[in-house]
C-alpha cells in the first residue's frame, strides 16, 4: 500500500519540503502509505457509524482494544510468513496447524495432565504451552525437510498439510470441542483478567520509550564511529518524539478501557472488597504483548543476525547464496520450523481466547496471514519483506473485518471486500515499485 501523494513528491520534486523531510528523517514512504491506509479505514468506519447509526463505534477504546487482541494471532503468524515468502516459498497449512496444535494442547490440559499432576495444578499451562510449541516446531520442521531436502514444492507440501492437519485435528478428539482450558492458560488469550492493568501498561510503555531512545542513540553512535552521513539532530528528535507519543498514546488508550461492571463485581467478591463503580483499566492484553515481543524478536532476527541475512540472500538469488557457502537447505528447513513455532504461539492465543479447542480453529487463517504479509510489502517473487509491514498488514486486514462487523455487514460481503482489498493493495504496491524504479 502506498500514499501516492508523498511518493510523487519524493520522486518528482527532489528539492521539495516533503522530500527533504523524508530523506532527512529516512522514513520509509511505504510505512507512511500503510499508516495512511489504516487512518482511512479507521476514520471511514467511524464516520459511517456516526452518519448512519448515530454512533461511531470504531474509534472507541473498547473497539481498538478488541482490535489489538484480534490482530495478535494473525500478526504473529504473518511475521513468520514474511520469511517463508522471502525465501520464495509459501505456507498454506498454518490454519490447519492451528487446529491440530490447539487440539493437542486442549487434550493435554483437559484429559491427560489433570490425571498426572492433579486438576488445576499450577504447572498445567506451562506444560501445555511447551508441548504446543514443540508440536508446532516439529510439524514446521517436517514441512521444511520435505521442501528443502526432498525437493517437493512448498505449495504442494503445505497444501497437503492443510488437509492432513485439519483431518488430524478432527480425529484427535473425534470431532469434539475440548473445553474449558486451564484457567491460567486462558489468560494468554486476553480478556479482563488476561491484561496487565494500568500500572503494568505504564511500565511496558516506559520500557518501550527507553527502547526507542536507545535505538536512535546507538544508531547515531555507529554512524559517528564510521563517519557515515548523520541524520540532522532535529530529525532524530522528531523520530524520538513520534515514537514516544505513539507509545504513550497507546498506553493511555488501553488504560481508558475499563473492566465491565460484572467483572468488577466478580473480582470484588473474590478479593472480599466492595469495588462497585470502581474504574479498573484493562491495560495491554497479554496476547498483544506477545505480539509485540514476537515482532521485536523477529525484527532483530531478520536484520541483525546471519540467519536473517541468509534468508534474504536466498530469496534474492538462491544460486549466489549457495556459492557464498550458505547451506540453503538447512536455512529453508529452519524457516519452516520457525513458522511452525510462531503458528503454535498463535494457536495458544486463539484457543486461550476461545477458552476451548475446536477442530475448526484457524480455518482460513492461512489466507489472512498470507494477505497480511503481502499487504505489508512482502514480495511473492521473494527477497523483499518487512516484519513491521506484516504486522501492520495484519492490523489492516483485521480492521477491515471488525469494522464491517461493527457497521453490520454480513460475512459474505466481508469476504468480498477483503478479497478486493488484497488485490487492490498488491496492485498499488506494483505501481509504487514502478515509480520508485
Amino acid at each position: 500500500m502506498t500514499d501516492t501523494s508523498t511518493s510523487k513528491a519524493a520522486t518528482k520534486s527532489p528539492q521539495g519540503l516533503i522530500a527533504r523531510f523524508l530523506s532527512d528523517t529516512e522514513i520509509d514512504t511505504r510505512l507512511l502509505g500503510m499508516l495512511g491506509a489504516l487512518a482511512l479505514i479507521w476514520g471511514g468506519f467511524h464516520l459511517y457509524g456516526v452518519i448512519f447509526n448515530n454512533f461511531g463505534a470504531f474509534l472507541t477504546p473498547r473497539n481498538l482494544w478488541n482490535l489489538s487482541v484480534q490482530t495478535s494471532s494473525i500478526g504473529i503468524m504473518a511475521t513468520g510468513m514474511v520469511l517463508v515468502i522471502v525465501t520464495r516459498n509459501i505456507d498454506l497449512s498454518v490454519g490447519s496447524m492451528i487446529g491440530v496444535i490447539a487440539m493437542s494442547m486442549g487434550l493435554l490440559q483437559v484429559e491427560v495432565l489433570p490425571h498426572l499432576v492433579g486438576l488445576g495444578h499450577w504447572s498445567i499451562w506451562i506444560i501445555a504451552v511447551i508441548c504446543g510449541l514443540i508440536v508446532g516446531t516439529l510439524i514446521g520442521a517436517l514441512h521444511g525437510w520435505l521442501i528443502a531436502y526432498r525437493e517437493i514444492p512448498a505449495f504442494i507440501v503445505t497444501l497437503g498439510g492443510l488437509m492432513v492437519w485439519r483431518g488430524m485435528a478432527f480425529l484427535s478428539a473425534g470431532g469434539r470441542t475440548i473445553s474449558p482450558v486451564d484457567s491460567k492458560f486462558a489468560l494468554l488469550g486476553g480478556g479482563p483478567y488476561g491484561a496487565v492493568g494500568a500500572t503494568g501498561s505504564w511500565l511496558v510503555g516506559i520500557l518501550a520509550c527507553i527502547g526507542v531512545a536507545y535505538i536512535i542513540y546507538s544508531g547515531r553512535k555507529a554512524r559517528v564511529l564510521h563517519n557515515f552521513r548523520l541524520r540532522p539532530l532535529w530529525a532524530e528528535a522528531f523520530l524520538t518524539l513520534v515514537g514516544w507519543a505513539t507509545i504513550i498514546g497507546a498506553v493511555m488508550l488501553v488504560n481508558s478501557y475499563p473492566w465491565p461492571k460484572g467483572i468488577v463485581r466478580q473480582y470484588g467478591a473474590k478479593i472480599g472488597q466492595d469495588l462497585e463503580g470502581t474504574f479498573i483499566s484493562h491495560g495491554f492484553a497479554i496476547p498483544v504483548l506477545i505480539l509485540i515481543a514476537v515482532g521485536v524478536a523477529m525484527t532483530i532476527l531478520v536484520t541483525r543476525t546471519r540467519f536473517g541475512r541468509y534468508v534474504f540472500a536466498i530469496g534474492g538469488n538462491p544460486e549466489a547464496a549457495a556459492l557464498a557457502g550458505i547451506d540453503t537447505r538447512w536455512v529453508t528447513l529452519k524457516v519452516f520450523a520457525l513458522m511452525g513455532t510462531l503458528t503454535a504461539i498463535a494457536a495458544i492465543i486463539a484457543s486461550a481466547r476461545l477458552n476451548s479447542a475446536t477442530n475448526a480453529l484457524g480455518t482460513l487463517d492461512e489466507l489472512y496471514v498470507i494477505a497480511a504479509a503481502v499487504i505489508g510489502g512482502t514480495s511473492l517473487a521473494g527477497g523483499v519483506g518487512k516484519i513491521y509491514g506484516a504486522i501492520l498488514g495484519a492490523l489492516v486486514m483485521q480492521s477491515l473485518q471488525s469494522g464491517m462487523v461493527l457497521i453490520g455487514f454480513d460475512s459474505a460481503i466481508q469476504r468480498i471486500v477483503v478479497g478486493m482489498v488484497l488485490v487492490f493493495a498488491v496492485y498499488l504496491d506494483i505501481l509504487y515499485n514502478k515509480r520508485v524504479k
Partner: protein
Amino acid sequence: MSNSGTPLVELKDISIAFGGIKAVDRVSVDLYPGEVVGLLGHNGAGKSTLIKCLSGAYKADAGDVYINGKKVVINNPRDARGHNIETIYQTLALADNLDAASNLFLGREIIGPGGFLDDSKMEAETRKIMSRLNPNFTKFAEPVSALSGGQRQSVAIARAVYFDAKILIMDEPTAALGPQESEMVAELIQELKKQGLGIFLIEHDIHNVMKLCDRASVMKNGQLVGTKRVADVTEDDILSMIILGKNPRESH
C-alpha cells in the same frame, strides 16, 4: 616466469559427468604463484565446469586437487574459501536485493558484540576497498540491482579480493563491461599477479588472453587439448587449438 617448485594448484585427472555426458574428462591443469593461466574453448567445452570443481560449486567424480602440493578435498564453496580460493562467477553471483556490503560479506559476515551483525563495520570496510578498486562507486545503501553492470562487477571483484585470496578464479570478468572498465580489470589482474596470486582466467577474447595470460590451457568437448606458454605461440596457434582441437606442435 620460471614455473619451478611446487604449483599453487594442481588439478589432476579431474572427471565429472552429468547424466552420462562427460562434461570434463580426465583434465589436468596447474597454476603457479604470480601466474595467470587462461582457460579457453568453445561454449560447452567444460571450462566453467572444471573450474567449479575447484571453487566447490561441483564435486568431481574422479581426480585429485592439490594445493601447495598437499592433496585437499573440496566438497562445497566453504571448503574452497577455506583454502583461500576466491571465485568471480560469470553471473557475478550477487543477491540483487542486498546492498554492496551485504554481498561482499555474504557467508563471512562481521559479527559484533552479542553475536549480531556489525553492519556499520561491514559498510565501512566496503567503502575502504571500493575506494581502491572503483573510486566512482557511491551507491552503498542501495540494493545491487540498482547498480550498473560495471558497478556490479566491481562488487563481485571486491568480494574476491577483500578476503586475501591466494587463488583467484575469474570467469569472463570483462564480458559485460565497457572498454574503460575492462581496462580497469586488466590493470587489477596485473596488480594481483605482482602480489603473488595465482589466477585462472576463463576468457573468450583471444587478444585479452595474449595480453593477460602467461599460459593458456585449451579445452574441447570436455578434454584438454593442450597447455601452451603464451610467449611461445601465436594467436592463430591458439585459435586452431580451440577450433580443431589439435595441438599445433603435432603438425610442426
